């Protein structure tokens, strides 16, 4: 019962935070310095790790598919498998998981430490709403950067699959053939569905991490506990939302 109450309270406070942040949307143009800083943190600093992981996910997908498809002599369709899997599922989900682990944890740690050391209270007494200054620029940056990261993840993953397909003996498909099949079976709509998923996941991860950070109470020990809670909650939400969003978009 207590867990259910906590979940409902968490949902309610997250929704309240969202409404408050959105109500300040008009102030975004004059917060462009904060917005650009968050775009840099969410986008640019996450890009290398997104690229590395996506490359290897595409590679492993091609490799595993190669071993399975060899039994049926259908290796020439590996491009479609890698293309669709990356675009519709693995690209957005992996980018969102990376966002939760790398950026989400940092957001929670920063806001929780601001809360514990009374910096958030100082903002409130200055009549500067934390939702406006601390949450809105992060949400806006997530909305802008997530599709970009997911798209780059897709492209790098496809490229990784192409490399493995060419240089693995049991597959041995030329990149031209690989990309030709990929283009034939991976449609613009599939890529857009993946980008929409990334957008939703990123927005939810940043919102949840901000809310948990801002609701931290107690001392420095609670900062660590909040970070753990934020990352775990984000990961669960990504996978649960993935099912429902996939249903919705299919």
């Amino acid at each position, binding site marked *: 019962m207590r867990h259910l109450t906590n979940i409902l309270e968490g949902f309610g406070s997250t929704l309240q935070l969202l409404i408050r942040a959105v109500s300040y949307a008009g102030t975004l143009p004059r917060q462009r310095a904060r917005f650009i800083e968050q775009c840099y943190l969410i986008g640019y600093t996450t890009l290398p790790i997104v690229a590395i992981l996506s490359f290897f996910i595409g590679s492993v997908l091609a490799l595993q598919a190669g071993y399975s498809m060899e039994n049926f002599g259908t290796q020439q369709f590996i491009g479609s498998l890698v293309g669709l899997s990356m675009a519709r599922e693995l690209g957005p989900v992996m980018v969102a998981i990376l966002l939760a682990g790398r950026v989400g944890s940092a957001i929670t740690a920063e806001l929780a430490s601001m809360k514990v*050391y009374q*910096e958030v209270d100082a903002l409130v*007494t*200055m*009549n500067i709403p934390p939702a406006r200054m601390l949450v809105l620029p992060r949400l806006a940056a997530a909305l802008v950067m997530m599709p970009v990261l997911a798209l780059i993840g897709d492209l790098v993953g496809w490229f990784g699959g192409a490399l493995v397909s060419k240089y693995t003996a049991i597959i041995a498909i030329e990149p031209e053939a690989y990309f030709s099949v990929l283009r034939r079976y991976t449609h613009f709509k599939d890529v857009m569905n993946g980008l929409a998923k990334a957008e939703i996941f990123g927005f939810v991860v940043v919102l949840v991490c901000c809310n948990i950070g801002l609701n931290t109470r107690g001392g420095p020990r609670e900062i660590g506990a909040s970070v753990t809670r934020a990352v775990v909650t984000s990961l669960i939400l990504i996978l649960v939302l993935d099912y429902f969003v996939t249903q919705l978009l299919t």
Partner: protein
Amino acid sequence: MPSAQHTRNPFTQVETPAVGISVEHLSKNFGSLKVLRDVTFDVHPGEIFVLMGPSGSGKSVLLKHIVGLELPTSGRVLVDEHDAASEETREHVRMALVFQSGALFNSLSVYDNLALYPREHRVADEAGIREKVMHALKILSLEGTARKFPSDLSGGMKKRVAIARALVMEPQLMLYDEPTSELDPVMSATISEIIASLREEYHVTTIVVSHDRDLALSIADRIGILMDGRLAFLGLPSELQAPTDPKVADFLNPKIDLKHPRFKQLET
């Protein structure tokens, strides 16, 4: 010197009516813990009111009610006749709280800490903000720290920067939470002088929460003493020379009895 019932803006020199506070039957519970119990008192416009009490007596919680950071379980707090927790009060009354820790923004330089409020509320252009910030730093003798970060400052300097940041808000109401805690006696005296001189100069209504007896007696117009969440004393500093309540007397003049059982336990 501004007139008795008016606060003077330190930057524009414009006078506005000083702000009064009413705490009416305020009680606050955290779960089963009763932190404040039916506390009632007024802070008159332009006075320095010092709220004293031992650690854990509810002083800081009471201060948070006045700035609207906490909501009462029962009773109410009125700031200039408006509910302290309402948005209107924050719009209507400029309140500045100097936190015990300073609560400076660690990621911002001293200059940016001070400039945050005027920038966010767009009270002046960047040149005007610079003028205000440098003036506030000068008042607190902090010239030369503008480019430093909070982590580069000593405890006393952090407190002074926090006061300067409060001053930039052109407050009608200044609240200090344990302004002399963790400071050496010389720095404590300096902070006490700053609080008194800011009131003297600008006639800002001031509430100081402290358990520092010397600070209270040197700057207060009136003193309240909280004991176990209740207001055990409310009156003039002179009345504290001979308090009638034994608990208040014990708090103000603690006697260390080395024969007390707790010291015997420490020996063994």
